[in-house]
């Protein structure tokens, strides 16, 4: 069963076609990778799914609901969460509160309830703290709960972003270059961790990544973008030997013997 269906998706920036008639189907419960050289349109693709940009053409469907025309917060409420290539944490806010913000859409507290601190609101707040703490434990950041997010190490910031995204209880989790800036050990841990997330949580994962070892190890399906166009799709073994893909990454001369 497919959870995400993208058809004919197109986005132009002036004369540049950043995403060009892309069709992609993601199976529920799978781990899918989107790869491609720099500037291929991968991040733009994520931004189109999450409503940061509106597409010029095409359709995006989560399950059976179309996401076209929806605002980012609506799409988040539909069950899509993401991390960002250039980490976007709430820097001057504590680590725990960053994750609590992820719980936003599940909390019911209103203006009046907050003002009078009703029992329900107090209990809900307490539960939110506990749940947020639980997600910190899950990504291994529990002992940093009271630190400001900006004071975390780079790798820890990426994990915090994942924890915050998980707190929204997503059906679909989009990770934009989660291993960027991580050392080999951290990358290995991340690979394991992505597997575990899929096992533990009922979540489908799509990730953009440049680290080919990680991509090949982890993904069941790979899509390759180049200059906004989908040039290949398939299992890791198929992609590894795909002529077009090698061409896109290494140039024509790599495949045509001189």
């Amino acid at each position, binding site marked *: 069963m497919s959870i995400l269906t993208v058809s004919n998706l197109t986005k132009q920036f002036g004369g540049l076609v950043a995403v060009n008639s892309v069709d992609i189907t993601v199976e529920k419960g799978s781990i899918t990778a989107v790869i491609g050289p720099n500037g291929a349109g991968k991040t733009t693709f994520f931004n189109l799914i999450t409503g940061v940009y509106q597409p010029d053409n095409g359709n995006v469907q989560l399950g059976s609901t179309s996401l076209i025309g929806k605002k980012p917060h609506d799409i*988040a409420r539909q069950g899509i969460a993401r991390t960002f290539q250039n980490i976007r944490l709430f820097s001057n806010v504590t680590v725990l509160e960053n994750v609590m913000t992820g719980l936003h*859409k599940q909390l019911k507290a209103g203006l009046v309830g907050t003002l009078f601190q009703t029992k329900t609101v107090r209990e809900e*707040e307490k539960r939110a703290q506990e749940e947020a703490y639980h997600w910190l434990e899950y990504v291994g950041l529990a002992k940093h709960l009271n630190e400001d997010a900006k004071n975390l190490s780079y790798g820890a910031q990426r*994990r915090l972003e994942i924890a915050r995204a998980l707190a929204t209880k997503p059906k679909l989790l989009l990770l934009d270059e989660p291993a960027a800036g991580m050392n080999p050990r951290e990358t290995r841990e991340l690979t394991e*961790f992505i597997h575990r997330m899929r096992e533990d949580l009922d979540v489908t994962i799509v990730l953009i990544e440049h680290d080919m070892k990680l991509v090949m190890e982890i993904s069941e399906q790979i899509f390759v973008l180049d200059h906004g166009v989908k040039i290949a799709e398939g299992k890791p073994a198929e992609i590894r030997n795909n002529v077009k893909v090698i061409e896109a990454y290494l140039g024509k001369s790599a495949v045509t013997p001189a």
Partner: protein
Amino acid sequence: MHKLTNKLKGNKLAQIILLVLYVLVTSLSLYLAQASVTAFLLMLFSLLILYYTELPDRLKWVIAGVVLIGVIPFVSSTGPGYQSYMEVATVVGIYVAMALGLNIVVGLAGLLDLGFVAFFAIGAYTYGIFATGQAANFMPFGNFPLSGESFWIFILIGCFVAALFGVLLGIPVLRVKGDYLAIVTLGFGEIIRIVFNNLDKPVNITNGAMGLASVKPPEIFGYQFVYPNQFYFIVLGILLFVILAVRRFEYSKIGRSWKAVRENEIAAQSMGIHLVRTKLLAFAIGASFSGMMGVVFAAKQTFVDPTSFTLLESITILVMVILGGMGSVPGVILGAAVITILNLQVLTEVTNYLNQLSLDGVISFPEALAPAKMQRFIFGAILIIFAIYRPQGLIPAKNPVFDEESLKEGSKKHRKEQITVEPDKGFQA
């Protein structure tokens, strides 16, 4: 000195004794002195000392209550300066509430608003129009002026009307961001003032530049509030509510969404936060505090005209927030107190002193250089100095500290509910 503070740290008894001693000494000097501004300022300073003691929060509130409700009004009541002290304290209270309102908009939600005084004006005119004969000009029914007893309801009405205007202003204005937002809000602030200035024709609603005179004083069970020492308690009551509200909002779902929007709009939206609604709520709540105090201001002055709501007022409130510490409730309270007292007391006192000197022929002192006329210069200087040397303000904002042990207990529940695998096997930090 350093040794002394170290010894004091952790010793609550010593802190209490010192605080009580300090309050006693300043009270006594205020009680005995004839209108000594210094004694009054030192008295107020005790609240700051209280803030820095390590007493439990509840006790601090009780002590602050005793000082504000009992000690200050009582010990200053003997001298000839009584009403002027109470006037200063009342005005400080009004500005503190406004600065706390602006702090929500600027400090928590990160929206630079340069026209904030508009909401104060809206509150003031709301009461001013109905508590004078003015409303009879355009209201088809009703008996105007309304009695002073309506004042209490008007605090609520002022609150809601200002909040409503906060939303109405927000809807068009929040399409722009950053510097543009600042400029648009600045324009809005001026527009409101100019509208009030010109709304005397075709229908005379605000009485234009003439303003509204003899606004009815508040009244309850036949008891009238006319003097500053009476308004002092009204302001104190509202202020208590405002501080309580701000603190509760700040550490709630609402406060977190404000901060999220301030820190990163795109990430905030990806958490399901409705950007426009969150910003509008900040505008509305911030405005509502100003609206309430506007009503009090109109009643206290018994006179409302557009000149009280100039751009300089908006800037003054902003300076309070920046000086005190953006996003910091105690900081903003201190900032508002410092700036108001500087404006009302210090600058005028220094001016008087210099004038006296030049009258005596000790120095020759040109009128144009009077400190009371140099507000803009002084605020500008404060802003620059703080931007360079202490951008986080006098009392920087503090994030809450959560108790890890109790959360650890609680989080086990969630583990059972959602996740089957032991969490410790994940990332190892």
